[in-house]
C-alpha cells in the first residue's frame, strides 16, 4: 500500500505497518501534542512543556514496565517465535494511540474552555484517553488476528498484556501528575508526594466517602 506513514498505519494491513522508528516517532510526537494541550490549558507555559514530556513518558514507561512480563508470558505459552511480530503489533498500536491523542488535542482545548469543574475535566480527559485506546485496539486487532489464527494462545497473552498495561498505566499516570496543573499548586514536574500515594487506594477512599 502506498501513501504516507499515517495512512499506511491506519488503513493498511500488517505488512503496511511503518518502520519501528516511524512508529516510535508517531507515538512520541502525537502524545506530546496532547500533552501541550493539557498543560497549556493552565495558561502556564512550563506546565505545557512538562506535560509534552510527561505524556510520551507515560506511554514509554508503562510499556517498558510491561514488556518483561509479556516476554515471559509469551515464552511460557510457547509463543516465543512470534514475539517479534507481537511486539510490532503493540508498537503499531502505540503509534495509533499517539496519533489519536494528537487528533484529540483540539478537543482537550475545547473541554478546557467549556468545563470549569476540575473533577469533570479529569473525567473527560480519562474518556479521551479511552477513545485513543479504542483506536489503538483496532490496529492491534489486525496484527493479532493473524497471530491468533496461527496459535489461539496469543489471545491469552494479549489479554494479559492489556490488563497489566492498564493496571500499571493508571499508577504511572498518577505518579506523573499533574498534567493540567491545579490552581493554587506550585508549577512542578511531579508532585512532591508522587511516590507516596497509590492511585487505587485514593480511588477506593473516594468511593468509600460516597457511602459515609
Amino acid at each position, binding site marked *: 500500500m502506498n501513501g504516507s506513514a499515517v*495512512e499506511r498505519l491506519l488503513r493498511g494491513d500488517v505488512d503496511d505497518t511503518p518502520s519501528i522508528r516511524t512508529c516510535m516517532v508517531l507515538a512520541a510526537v502525537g502524545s506530546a501534542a496532547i500533552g501541550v494541550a493539557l498543560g497549556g490549558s493552565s495558561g502556564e507555559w512550563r506546565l505545557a512543556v512538562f506535560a509534552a514530556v510527561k505524556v510520551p513518558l507515560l506511554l514509554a514507561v508503562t510499556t517498558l514496565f510491561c514488556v518483561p512480563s509479556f516476554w515471559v508470558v509469551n515464552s511460557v505459552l510457547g509463543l516465543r517465535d512470534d514475539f517479534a511480530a507481537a511486539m510490532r503489533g503493540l508498537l503499531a498500536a502505540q503509534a*495509533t494511540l499517539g496519533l489519536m491523542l494528537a*487528533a*484529540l488535542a483540539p*478537543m482537550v482545548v*475545547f473541554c478546557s*474552555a*467549556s468545563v470549569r469543574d476540575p473533577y469533570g475535566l479529569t473525567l473527560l480527559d480519562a474518556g479521551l484517553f479511552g477513545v485513543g485506546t479504542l483506536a489503538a485496539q483496532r*490496529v492491534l486487532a489486525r496484527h493479532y488476528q493473524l497471530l491468533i489464527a496461527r496459535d489461539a494462545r496469543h489471545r491469552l497473552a494479549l489479554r494479559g498484556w492489556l490488563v497489566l498495561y492498564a493496571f500499571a498505566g493508571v499508577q504511572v499516570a498518577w505518579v506523573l501528575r499533574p498534567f493540567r496543573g491545579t490552581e493554587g499548586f506550585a508549577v512542578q514536574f511531579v508532585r512532591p508526594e508522587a511516590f507516596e500515594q497509590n492511585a487505587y487506594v485514593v480511588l477506593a477512599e473516594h468511593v468509600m466517602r460516597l457511602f459515609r
Partner: protein
Amino acid sequence: MPTPSLFSILDRVLRGDYVRQEQLATGRIEVPTSRLIALGLLLGGLYGFGVGSYALFRGADQAWLQALTAALKVPLLFLLTLLVTFPSLYVFAALQRLPLDLRNLLRLLLVAILVHLTILASLAPVFAFFAASTKSYAFMLLLNVACFAVGGMLGLGVLRRATIAMFAPPLPPTLPPTAPSNAIPDSPGSSDGGEAVANVATTARQRLQASEQARTVLRVWCLVYGIVGAQMGWLLRPFLGAPDLPFTLFRPREDSVFIGVMRAIGQLLGR
C-alpha cells in the same frame, strides 16, 4: 475545465450530486475546497445577520456592531467545531478504511455543513420577521436553537446517505447479468460457479459489516459534533444580543449550553 460558479456548486450540493455513489466510488469529491468554504462564509454570514437583526429591532446597545459580529460568529462557530471534531473523525474513518482520504473526507463534511448553512440562511428571513415582532429574548434564543437543530439534522442526513453509498455494492455488477443455471452451489459439476457465488456472498457480508461499523462511528461522531457545536455556540455567545445588556464580543464563561437552554425554557414558561 473552468471552475464552476458558486451558485452552481451550491445547487449541486443541495441536489446531492457530490455524495452520489458514482462520485464516492472514485474516492474523490470533485469540488474545490476553497469554494465550499467561501459559500459557507457567505451563507453563515447571512444567517448570522438574521440572528443579529434581533438587536437592531430591539434597539440593543451598539445594535449594528452586534449584528455584524453575529454575521462573523456563525461561520466561525462552524469552522471551530470542525477544527475540534475533524481530526479524530479522520483517524477513525481511516481505521474503518473509508474510501475517502483526508482532503476528500474534509470536502464531504464541508458539503454536509453547507447543507446545514443553506437551511439556516433560508430561515434567516423567518428569523428576522420573528425578531421584528417578538420581545421575548428567551423565545428568540430557543428559536435560534431550533433552527440550528433542524438544519443540523438535514445536514447530517447527507453524511448518513454518503456512508450508505460508500459501502453499497459496486455499480457494475460483479456477477454476470444472466447467471447460468448450473451456478447453483450444490448442483453437480458447478464447483467454479459455486465458488464465485460464495466469494460474492463473502464480499457482500464483509461490505455490510464494514458499512455497519462505519455508520456506528459516524453516528457517534455526529453526536459528538452536535454537542461540541452546541457548546461552541455557547462559548461564542452573544449572537442575539440581549436588549438589557451592554454590547460585548464574548460573554464570560459560565454554565453550559444545556443549562442555558433549560433556563430559557423556564423563563418562557414564566418560572
